[in-house]
């Protein structure tokens, strides 16, 4: 970590511990330079970083002030849970998602649509050093393919991460993949066939719906509580009624609701699936981004039969462009390894070596602490802005991890139209119907909070609020 990053962290800790209250001026540049024996440029870089994290704001010719808590007097109402399960549906028309993700690469757009963190939250410099070293290493040692299960050094490091989630899979139970998306595709292909019914949460992330669509499977949406997550009771009822072949769940900080299953629910879910003999696919891609200090357990922790196919990636925590993910497929190991081999032969070597190296060096925990604090803060800022600017009656999810919020507008609002209108104002949002196989959530949208917070964000939210209000007035 560089000197200015260290300084920014020290100051962030002081802010969090209440050394300076909201609205208070933090010591000036010269004073900080003297106090911390740091150069003026270092202090200025640290201040900018703090600003990017949303902890302070600059006031011209005055200095940096701790941002107002912006905590709403009253917590916003939660979105409603879907009460009734639907019938299995063929998933279709998920092509809009590509537009959303592509918008993250445009500089003239405020990208609140895709769940991609801005690079300012990512340890790009450290990772790039690791990538450089890995590239030189791979250039020296004879290349060749990292055939499944993949790079041994990386699988060793991943096994350690999984141990922190309560999983004792070990390196020999892990297969590296080209991101979580490939892991998910492999998992579903390993346990189900075209036409089969897959039980999913609702709302759920479009990446999952796309895989189900592309594989010609059918989705069954199971009622999901915005705070407690997927309801095992509701799943039991669905199992009794439909020929379900697999269940897919984001156990920790689901996308878009941001809720985590309690340990009891995880245990109940794992037991239920084992008894019904249907595989449980657990996506834990947000598991390390909880706002609390303790990383929650994975559902796989409760797995005694190898019935849980656990998958994750470093796209949300390290860098999306790396495309390094993994799967621990339990007793489906051989089948998944084989499918990986016949679908893409191997995962690129250098990014795997780089992540292994980065994890080995230490610093990942520190990075996670920093990201978690920043995301908690940004979710708070975004929620407050939405509450301030959106129409009366708007409901907002209360995530306990991750970096997205789910916003439910009053009935009558149309998020598909809002998407188009927002796009012409150079803002992207993820409209609700993307998160459903059955076209639900027309009046909902997802917003990404992992963007540097500033006047432009506040203004963007105000614009969205204005557009939504206009819709309701006209309607």
């Amino acid at each position, binding site marked *: 970590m560089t000197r200015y990053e260290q300084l920014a962290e020290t100051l962030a800790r002081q802010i969090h511990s209440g050394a300076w209250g909201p609205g208070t001026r933090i010591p000036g540049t010269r004073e900080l330079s003297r106090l911390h024996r740091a150069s003026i440029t270092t202090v200025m870089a640290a201040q900018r970083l703090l600003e990017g994290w949303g902890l302070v704001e600059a006031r011209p010719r005055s200095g940096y002030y701790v941002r107002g808590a912006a905590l709403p007097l009253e917590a916003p109402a939660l979105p409603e849970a879907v009460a009734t399960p639907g019938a299995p549906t063929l998933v279709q028309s998920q092509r809009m998602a590509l537009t959303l993700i592509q918008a993250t690469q445009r500089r003239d757009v405020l990208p609140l649509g895709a769940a991609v963190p801005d690079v300012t939250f990512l340890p790009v410099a450290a990772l790039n050093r690791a990538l450089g070293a890995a590239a030189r290493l791979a250039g020296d040692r004879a290349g060749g393919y990292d055939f499944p299960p993949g790079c041994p050094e990386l699988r060793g490091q991943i096994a350690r991460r999984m141990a922190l989630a309560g999983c004792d899979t070990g390196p020999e139970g892990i297969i590296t993949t080209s991101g979580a998306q490939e892991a998910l595709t492999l998992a579903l292909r390993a346990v189900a066939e075209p036409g089969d019914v897959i039980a999913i949460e609702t709302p759920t992330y479009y*990446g999952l719906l796309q895989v189900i669509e592309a594989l010609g499977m059918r989705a069954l949406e199971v009622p999901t509580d915005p705070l407690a997550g997927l309801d095992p009771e509701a799943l039991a009822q669905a199992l009794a009624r439909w020929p379900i072949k697999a269940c897919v769940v984001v156990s920790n900080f689901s996308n878009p609701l941001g809720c985590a299953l309690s340990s009891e629910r995880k245990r109940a879910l794992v037991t239920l699936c084992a008894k019904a003999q249907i595989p449980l696919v657990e996506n834990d891609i947000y598991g390390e981004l909880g706002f609390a200090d303790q990383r929650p357990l994975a559902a796989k922790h409760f797995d005694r039969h190898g019935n849980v196919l656990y998958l994750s990636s470093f796209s949300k925590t390290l860098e999306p462009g790396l495309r390094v993910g993994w799967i621990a497929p339990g007793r489906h190991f051989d089948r998944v390894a084989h499918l990986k081999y016949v679908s893409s032969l191997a995962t690129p070597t250098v990014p795997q070596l780089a992540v292994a190296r980065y994890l080995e060096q230490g610093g990942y925990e520190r990075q996670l602490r920093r990201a978690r604090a920043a995301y908690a803060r940004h979710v708070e800022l975004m929620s407050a802005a939405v509450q301030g600017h959106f129409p009366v009656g708007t409901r907002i999810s209360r995530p306990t991890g991750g970096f997205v919020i789910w916003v439910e507008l009053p009935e009558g609002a149309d998020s598909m139209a809002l998407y188009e209108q927002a796009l012409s104002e150079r803002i992207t949002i993820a409209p609700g119907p993307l998160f459903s196989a059955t076209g639900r959530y027309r009046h909902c949208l997802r917003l990404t909070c992992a963007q540097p917070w500033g006047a432009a964000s506040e203004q963007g939210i105000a614009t969205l609020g204005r557009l939504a209000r206009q819709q309701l007035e006209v309607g």
Partner: protein
Amino acid sequence: MVEEALRYEQVADQVREQVRLGALRPGERIPSVRQMSRRLGVSVSTVVQGYGLLLDERVIEARPQSGYYVQAPVQRPAPPGISRPQAHPVAVTVSQLALQVVQASRHGARIPLGSALPRTDFPAVVRLHRILASLARRPDPRLADYDMPPGNPALRHQVARRAAEAGVVVSADEVVITNGCVEALVLCLRAVTRPGDTVAIESPAFFGTLQSIESLGLKALEIPTDPRQGVSLPALKLALEQWPLKAVVLSPNFSNPLGYRMSDRRKAELVALLERARVPLIEDDVYADLNYHGERPRAAKAWDRTGNVLLCSSLSKTLDPGMRIGWAIPGRHTETVTHLKMVTSLAGPTLPAQAAAEYLAGSGHERHLRSVRSAYRERRDRFLDLAARHLPSGCRVTQPEGGMLAWVELPEAVDSLDLYRRALARGVSTAPGPLFSASGRYGNFVRLNYAQAEVALMEEGLTILGELIREGR
């Protein structure tokens, strides 16, 4: 161009036919270039091209200051005959053996002859990794972000630019970057088929392709294939009439494992045939840059006028397999393939794609290819000599004109799966024949890689194989 291709191939055809009929015997001098030019009424350069083809095929040899002579076939093992696969579609059930075989080649075996891995000790590989390392120091936030399908624009431009060498004129918009050639093939197969459909393949065929077909729930129809000419077009025509084929998967240039090269005339015929039948051709072109003589052969897609050919290739065989840089040029299926790429693995890794783009934009790749080609050609010659010396008589070996793989037919009594196990116990990896068939054929064949192991090791490996084959009879 097709006309020109026709003429020089006619020259070669005529000599080949005369040799086959015994009108020209081994050691006999064939007509000089000028004589032939007069006799057939074609240009001198056409004859030179035709003779070049015959030189490649080792039908004739050149003797300095004397002329061209029919080559004596004694010192080299004969190539295997045309394949006679099962005449109906079968569900593919190649076992998980394949993954074991490739893993053994990478980790288990002291003498790796079983994989299709290239040599990676060329300076260009180091250069590519240096570019990657320097990119990692470049402060560009786009290099950390997703590189969404169809993939890095600069790399797509380079792929499109290089495709012209294969006679394929496309814009960067028609290129989709993939995680190696295998992903390209799988995405293309998924774009044009549904589970339960039947696809035609050459026989023997690369086991990875067979397994991809299996994993997609498709049935494979194996088409008889000549080790020199490639897939039999009359047989393919018959199959098209007889079966509801949804795609044909071929590798017309230096196929794995046969190493044949289809002539331009036959490529044109193939493309026209499939266009008429409205059956897409999925072309695996991954070895085509590794030609030992003359120009890089053209891809079948060069004759594609309707977007019916989906071309797949990668840098894995020519540069670095670990980088996983592949691509598809899917013709009129480009949009579908792009979408499938996104929903299957979202994106490729950003930095390697940019590194490959900058590497290809530089001037060194052609030079690199030249050194790979000559290195592999030399290895091929050493391999054929060593095979003739160490393998028992009755073994027949292909004489590839490109790539890095030889297909060896063993005496009928030898079981290549058994040979695989016994050889592995002595540190030699091989790829047993049954892997290359959907219907369990080629029990007495093995595929050997002559590029990867050092020559001394290769000789040791062939000595061991020779012993084991004699024991196994």
